[in-house]
């Protein structure tokens, strides 16, 4: 089931699971007596093991190289067109935007980490995993539709769901539902700009799409990676 995930995830999950279950009932005399002896070692191990693969998680991947190349080309075009002033203007604007976004990104990352930590993995993989059927897709869709916040929450949460055992289909349903029927964006931007009629009409048309996208994604995924599928 974890065949598709990143190495960091596969390391992290068992380490954290074992630790939290160990510390879950301190009343247990055996666990208590073992704690002082056993806990430091696994805890250190886990502390070492958790962030380390995270670093190896290809900070400069293939995608980032493509993006960097695109950016370089575009920046050169801007420079050719507007001179150094244009380049600097965009840079300062984007830097201030970046500064404003950072705290929200931190919040999103913490949110994702808490979700990974709190949600019971078995339950998630049962209700959102590859065998969850239509119900899993519907849950993903509903979850995406009610998820508050912008992209800085949606994507870390989606990533966390993948980590705790949701499959690609349910996660696709969630992400697509968030972009298409997430109420936050519709109320804040679409209603005032596009008008109520158009917005409602579009949302009604969009309603089935997340489930279809999730089902299609699952369908393709099972055929693309047959080894991973159960």
């Amino acid at each position, binding site marked *: 089931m974890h065949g598709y995930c990143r190495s960091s995830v596969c390391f*992290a999950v068992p380490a954290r699971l074992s630790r939290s279950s160990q510390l879950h009932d301190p009343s247990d005399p055996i666990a208590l007596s073992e704690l002082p002896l056993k806990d430091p070692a696994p805890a250190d191990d886990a502390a070492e093991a958790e962030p380390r693969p995270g670093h190896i998680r290809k900070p400069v991947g293939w995608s980032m190289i493509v993006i960097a190349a*695109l950016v370089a080309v575009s920046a050169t075009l801007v420079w050719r067109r507007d001179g150094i002033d244009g380049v600097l203007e965009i840079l300062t604007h984007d830097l201030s935007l970046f500064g404003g976004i950072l705290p929200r990104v931190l919040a999103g990352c913490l949110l994702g980490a808490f979700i990974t*930590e709190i949600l019971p993995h078995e339950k998630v993989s049962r209700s959102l995993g590859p065998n969850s059927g239509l119900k899993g897709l519907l849950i993903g869709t509903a979850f995406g539709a009610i998820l508050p916040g912008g992209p800085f929450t949606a994507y870390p949460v989606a990533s966390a769901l993948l980590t705790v055992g949701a499959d690609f289909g349910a996660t696709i349903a969630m992400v697509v539902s968030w972009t298409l029927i997430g109420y936050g964006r519709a109320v804040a931007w679409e209603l005032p700009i*596009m008008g109520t009629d158009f917005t409602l009409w*579009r949302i009604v048309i969009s309603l089935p799409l997340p489930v279809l996208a999730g089902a299609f994604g699952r369908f393709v995924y099972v055929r693309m990676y047959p080894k991973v599928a159960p």
Partner: protein
Amino acid sequence: MLWASVACLGFIAFRRGRPVLTASLREGSMDFINIVPRIALGVIGSGYIAAVIPQEIITGWLGPNSGWLGVLTAVIAGAATPGGPVVGFSLGAVALKAGGGAPQVIAYVIAWALFAFQRVLLWEIPFMPARFVWFRAAVSVPFPFLAAAIAMAIGKP
């Protein structure tokens, strides 16, 4: 709102025991540190990419030409539209007023929601496994067309 949910989940984690809380705090901070350089590239870079794509061209693509060719150009225009929700929806509204067909504008808005390159570059690729992103984008390709088809079938509001 955002920090309230963080605090709420943090409290739940704290109830599970301090180690759970510290572990997730550490995990979250590590993710954050890992992601910051990518976000930096995304934010700073997409500004330049957006500056290269003039908005008039996009509205032109959305023009009053109808039929499936119009839908196709609308989908491409949606994916190529830079900027946040204000830009995306405003261009859609302009196209609607300028005589663009409703199915085309629907296809445009949905394609924009699904693939707007700036959001994908800035948010989706840094946060999600790249494989998932490409997979999701590929799987989503038929859906703006499907939405346009539904819109054509049920007609204008």
